[in-house]
């Protein structure tokens, strides 16, 4: 199992432990997306070297929040992922992203109830500074997940998110 595999399955377990956190799309490092639809985003103009991979590792919904997440074994390898997530946000916006998702999962997502996008990175080795706009999920050597909400979220939003990321 690679470090990225370990991150992917630790986060999958984490998300499934919270009843109000819903995985819309999970694309494991093996590429075998058996559980959920594979959501491919349109080709983006400002993606540069990250343009070949058109899906995301996780698309997660909790309440009105939509989390777009990319995974790596270590934080230092995530620069392409940062470019990709920012390009998705800037070029497609929440409306375009929801339109793409709806084409794959017409019954699951009801667009009007989602109004806030969260860009996120997951990794196991925290060996580089990550811009504050990204919410980070770090899986430690014991499999515990530590997360830090992005700096663009208001205190109210963080409180709202914390209510979803709390065990019942």
């Amino acid at each position: 199992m690679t470090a990225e595999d370990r991150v992917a399955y630790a986060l999958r377990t984490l998300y499934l432990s919270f009843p109000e956190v819903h995985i819309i799309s999970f694309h494991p490092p093996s590429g075998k997306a058996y559980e959920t639809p594979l959501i491919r985003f349109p080709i983006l103009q400002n993606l540069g070297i990250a343009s070949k991979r058109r899906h995301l590792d996780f698309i997660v919904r909790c309440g009105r929040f939509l989390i777009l997440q990319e995974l790596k074994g270590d934080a230092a390898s995530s620069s392409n992922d940062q470019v990709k997530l920012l390009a998705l946000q800037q070029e497609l916006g929440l409306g375009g992203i929801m339109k793409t998702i709806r084409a794959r999962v017409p019954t699951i997502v009801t667009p009007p109830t989602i109004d806030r996008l969260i860009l996120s990175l997951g990794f196991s080795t925290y060996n580089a500074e990550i811009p504050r706009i990204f919410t980070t999920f770090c899986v430690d050597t014991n499999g515990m997940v530590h997360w830090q909400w992005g700096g663009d979220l208001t205190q109210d939003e963080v409180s709202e998110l914390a209510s979803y990321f709390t065990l019942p």
Partner: protein
Amino acid sequence: MPTPEEVLVLCDGVTDAELFKRIRRCHPVLRRIPEASIRTYEQARFRSTETPLRRAVQPLHIDDRPDLIFCFRDRPILVVEMTEHAYTGDNGLQRFARFAVAAENGLPFIYFGPLRRVRDDELDSMEEGTASARSLTSDLFEGMKRLNEIFGTPQLYVEWRTADNGMPLSLGTRPSDNDILGLYGELLTLIAGILFEADPARAGIIQHAQAETTRLAAIRNTRASDVRFLLPPKNAIALVKNAALLCDLLDGGAYFDKGKGDKLFAKFSLSQSSITSIQLPDGTMVLEGHPTFAEILPKVFAHRKFQNPAMIYYTGYKWRPDPHGGAAVNVDYRICRPNNERTPQARATALIIFYPRISCNPQSPLWQILRDAGPETPGLAKMFIDRYGPGLGTTKLEKCTHSENLFSLWGNASKQARLFRRCADIVVLNDGIILGHPIEEVFA
């Protein structure tokens, strides 16, 4: 036959293992397979010692790895392949070598995948609800039917159903037992039916599934191929000696003037091809000028196989394993073994593969041109201009040459080389010939 507690399930990756752990809980017998007995294949680099299980599984990993292998007492007893893909052309055959390897090793095989589905790119580009589903090529089912007829082992298919939007259905991350049984119930029943003799419905289940493969094979959805055809022996031999003849033979000469522009790379290679080296089945390379060079092909063509029409398979792909590796194995079983020959050595029909974007002689004049080929290569530029006109031709050529490795050198260690050498009598490259294992008795 094993009890569920005695079954070991080897999985290609964590995802396969997690999926099987999850879905088998809904089956009354498969749920008894211990969780610890469902695990991923060991990585070759972590293996310390050889074990009977590793030795027994190794033949199933000869080219690549199927998704699930069920084992009992250190022996494989069932192979399962799962994919969400379903393609109309050669891409649908890219896994076929796994089907064949299971049958050649006397093992039942189950293929789980969609029968028809919408393509991802069409769903991306078309208005909602307008993308139409494409059918999986019936050549796949015909190949499965032939494997069953030749080896007598089950080759079974279970449909991965699709949603209203034409995409394969998925469970979601919190499925109910009914959700799981709705999607995977038939697959689980078939797996249990094959594994456990105690199941009274076993024979009926397998027979019914095999009949379904036969039924699907009879529903032809492929047209006659431009790149796969039988040729009388005299013409086939002439073509091997002068591969440039293919330029006028494929689709009556129209093949290279339609479809993707990068077909012209293959045409360029073909137009200048000449045989400067021959690799014997044991891997020995004989270069032009060697005293035995001129004797090799006459010896090959004197073999009984070349008294019959030969199967020609042209592949214009660059150096890559898929999909043409699986497609070649499919052609072998569907067309080249009319008498149910169990090995390619025993076949009455020769299989000749033309692979013109590949060279095998690093010293050949043609490789010296191809390794640096690009927009400045005179003959290549002319072909693009002849097809598209002066302006568009230059643009197309520049666009096509952005791709890496337009031309490559043959290497025996790669998957496509292993597959081609195993199933083809002759592989014709742009500057030489690879003689495959099926013709090895000529050099015994």
